[in-house]
């Protein structure tokens, strides 16, 4: 047997072993099984096309066969590249976190928090500490960042004195996004929007609710803006921390290639600029010029899309994206907004 033949057989078994060895891991792992099965479908399609082309090109000269197979390779790699980009983007935008430890600890805090466990909704409500039980009080409905889940954030708020103003005169409600915490609904852009409506309906159905203020941070601004734009939704005000113009801006802030047809690879388009036109409640936006995740320009662009109601844009400097809830300047701005609403 020649050296070349040994290499050829080695390459064939190398590719097949790498393929089957990797795929068995993914198919067995529940978290990536669906992604892997989609990958297998892509592989099956490429397999079928290659086989068909081989049959059709049987007996044809190399100058015909080689370009066709080169084209198949290019298309295959592009399809897999696109699918990988789509999958990574989706995972990075909504990494779907949960915090079992914080959840268990909150469950043990009798009276300090109320667990929300409705159909399609899971999360926590911190009752207003300065309002008597059963008395009407306004509610802060919070839409958090993509790394947050309700248990983790609510535990942080309860443990941190600086955050006590959030539940002094207000009930503070944080519900998990689909696929976060105990919410098992698969996350898509439409399920996210439906979630905001369900969350609003839940809060407004509470007998003690006298008004609703939306507080949103980072990725939560997209769903919040959608909710605020709905005709049958009545809000006292909106406070948006690190808002963004659209999902494209978020993707481009990480990898600046999502233009033209590549926009199709953006899983969460979240076009806040469109919804902003229909928002009629007072809106306050707070953005940092040093935010390394949400471009400041994107926040400004969204602000310019607002057309109804009163709007206020607050610029802060030197605050990084993950420092919004520890910045005295921002905490003070939120407190002022709450007092004014």
């Amino acid at each position: 047997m020649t050296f070349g033949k040994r290499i050829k057989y080695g390459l064939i078994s190398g590719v097949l072993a790498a393929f089957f060895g990797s795929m068995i891991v993914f198919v067995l792992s529940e978290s990536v099984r669906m992604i892997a099965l989609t990958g297998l479908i892509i592989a099956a399609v490429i397999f079928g096309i290659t086989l068909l082309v081989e049959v059709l090109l049987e007996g044809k000269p190399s100058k015909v066969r080689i370009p066709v197979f080169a084209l198949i390779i290019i298309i295959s790699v592009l399809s897999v590249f696109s699918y990988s980009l789509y999958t990574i983007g989706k995972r990075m935008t909504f990494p779907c976190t949960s915090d079992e430890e914080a959840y268990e600890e909150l469950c043990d805090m009798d009276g300090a928090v109320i667990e929300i466990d409705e159909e399609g909704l899971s999360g926590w409500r911190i009752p207003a500490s300065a309002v008597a039980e059963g008395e009407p009080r306004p509610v802060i409905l919070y839409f958090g960042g993509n790394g947050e889940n309700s248990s983790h954030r609510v535990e942080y708020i309860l443990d941190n004195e600086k955050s006590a103003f959030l539940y002094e005169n207000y009930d503070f409600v944080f519900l998990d996004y689909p696929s976060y915490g105990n919410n098992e609904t698969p996350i898509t852009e439409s399920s996210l929007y439906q979630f905001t409506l369900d969350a609003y309906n839940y809060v407004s159905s509470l007998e003690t609710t006298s008004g609703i203020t939306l507080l949103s941070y980072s990725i939560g601004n997209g769903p919040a803006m959608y909710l605020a734009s709905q005709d049958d939704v009545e809000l006292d005000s909106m406070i948006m921390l690190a808002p963004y113009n659209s999902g494209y801006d978020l993707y481009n802030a990480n990898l600046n290639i999502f233009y033209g047809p590549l926009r199709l690879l953006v899983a969460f388009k979240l076009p806040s600029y469109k919804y902003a036109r229909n928002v009629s409640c007072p809106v306050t936006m707070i953005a940092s010029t040093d935010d390394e995740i949400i471009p400041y320009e994107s926040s400004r662009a969204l602000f310019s899309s607002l057309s109804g109601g009163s709007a206020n844009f607050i610029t802060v400097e030197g605050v990084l994206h993950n420092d919004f809830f520890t910045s005295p300047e921002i905490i003070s701005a939120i407190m002022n907004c709450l007092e004014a609403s």
Partner: protein
Amino acid sequence: MRTDLRYKLTLAAVFASIPLVLFAMVLFIIATDSLWIALFPLYLFAGALIITFILGFVPFMKDHMWLSVSAVTVLGLLAGLILYLVV
């Protein structure tokens, strides 16, 4: 030019596998955040290539290379299973 069915099937399988192996590496990075584990498909590829190449010198196997390819592919599958069970 070889036109037998086995050749066609193998070529199609290799064509289908190459992009998916690249995809598997990306998926490993997402799922584990570990570059060492993300390179698992590459280890499999290199290991299978070397083993098959060496089998080409073994008296019986060098006349039955498709048996070597099948055996090494099954070994790759088992390696994946072990990775899943260990990690």
